[in-house]
């Protein structure tokens, strides 16, 4: 076995890069999609739940009250573009492209080219069936803020050293 294979503390997932959270409070690579929650520019009470599927780039965007987004009929709306941009900031463009199975020759190397490259393929409109589960994952994510700290030792964290490597 290689050193990496016989390391107890091998780094498997690079840590998220810091980014501003105002426009996109939540984005994740999960359930075969880049999915998340995008703030409405105008209404603080409203957010959009947006997603793009890996492989097909099928896209969906709707409000948290399940109203379809007017901008996401023919192609990516600005919420979806913003979502992809922020995903690239948080996870690094390579990891997002790999997750989406987006050919690296197609999109080149700059972050904003990710959405552009997918739009160029004429992606299909998906349904909004996943919106409720994405929104509940966002709530679960926020709920971590409410968990109490402990000063009892958690020796299991010894398996999770920090790394200076970036995504």
């Amino acid at each position: 076995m290689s050193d990496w294979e016989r390391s107890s503390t091998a780094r498997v997932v690079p840590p998220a890069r810091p980014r501003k959270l105002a426009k996109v409070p939540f984005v994740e690579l999960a359930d075969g999609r880049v999915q998340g929650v995008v703030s409405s520019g105008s209404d603080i009470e409203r957010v959009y739940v947006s997603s793009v599927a890996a492989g097909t780039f099928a896209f969906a965007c709707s409000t948290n009250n399940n109203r379809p987004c007017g901008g996401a009929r023919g192609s990516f709306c600005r919420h979806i573009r913003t979502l992809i941009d922020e995903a690239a900031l948080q996870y690094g463009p390579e990891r997002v492209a790999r997750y989406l199975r987006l050919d690296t020759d197609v999109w080149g190397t700059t972050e904003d080219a990710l959405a552009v490259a997918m739009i160029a393929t004429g992606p299909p409109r998906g349904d909004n069936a996943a919106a409720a589960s994405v929104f509940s994952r966002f709530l679960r994510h926020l709920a971590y803020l409410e968990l109490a700290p402990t000063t009892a030792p958690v020796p299991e964290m010894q398996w999770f050293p920090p790394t200076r490597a970036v995504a």
Partner: protein
Amino acid sequence: MVPAHQGGGVMRVDLLTESVAGLDEALAAVDAFDRALVVGLLRPHAVQAAGLTELADAVAGTPLAGRVAEAAEKAAAGAASEDHFVALAAARTALVGSVHDALMERVEAATGRSHAGESVPEPPEPHPANLLVAARSWLADLARCGWQGIDHEVVSGSAAVVSAMLPDPDLRRLATLLDGFAAELAASCPGSALERVPVRRWADLWSRAMVLTVPGAAGVPVTGMVSGRLLPLGVDVQEHATAVQAQVHAVFEPADGGASRLVRGCVSVPKPDTIVGAGLWQLLRPHMSLLAAVSEGRSMDLSDMPVTAEGDLVWSDARARAGAPADAFATARVALSTASVSATAPLDRHPARIAAPVFLEGYSSQQDDDGLTFTVADHRLAVDTDRIPTAGPLTPEAVAVSRACIGLLRWDAGEFTLQPLAVETTVRKKLTAIHAGAWAGGTTDKAGARAEKAATDAGTMLRERAGRLLRK
């Protein structure tokens, strides 16, 4: 020639580079079992069956022997129950424990520090087991799938268990472990497309989680209250996407004049994955005044602070107050070598848990493709600069030009390494100490303040959303 340092013991790096008897054999049995988990135990092939037998044979002379032999046989036939998986995890834990003990003997010989001799008592009464049963069932599913067989459906089976466990302090350890483990597995799906598998790591995490599903396994009881002076050496940070822990390593001098000992003060908290860097300190800072003392270079005076037999203080701000200024390098030079080491709880006997504070000077450093190494009296010690947290002033470059170093001696992938916690180096002709955890309690440093501001904004944004959405 061995460099002598003032008042301190001499670190015998040569003892860390010699081979350890029995270690390769024990790890070979561990590896054989770990490889069986790569393919999975649903329909094991001959190679995996042999791996299971090798594990069972390696614990043949121990009290576990009978149960493990039976478990290995059932697993080899693809018919293991959850209890059989627990037995296999326990066997692997015992084997790795023997490796830990052999390595710790080396560490004690190299540092000249002695063992306090106290043993760790049995944990208190078990916790109600529903969630533990659910966790065990998920882990058994993983073992059957194997790492190459994982998919999103299997991995997501842990989410509900983790969410239910996290708020319960008694289940926090297992919850934190499963949460970090599941995130890695999710990021690695489908397993069939993996180019390489972190074989030992995932088997470690799996076995540890499996053993923690045994009610009571996670308890390390408080064995006393201590009063006296606490002299911090440095801060070690650990993090995964949704949790962070800071551990302050320190020398404790009892007020009654008893022998000093090495202790740790720690604080941890679950977190959203978008809180990173300086944001981690912001989450932890309000809950342990010791972090501020580290940043200010102070000692702390403790009165009746609970401590475990492992030397972990169970910190309470009410039982500590800021003491006189204390330079970590003075502590390292004068007090470190005579402080005694605490016992290790049975479940914590694992090489990954080794983190022995050491002080080095009089070394030369070499940087090459494999990274940084310090050479002490002709013996090389690899320096793990990747563990230095980004939210702090210490950098790999500063470590490379340093003249003295406080660090943690660790062991991974077959070798001892040094994790730097602080260095002394010359900045503009002046000897300067740089601490990895300098920003723990806050900072006035320009780069630090900028990182703090960005992290504050992110935290505020998320809290505002949580306030709006979670209580609807």
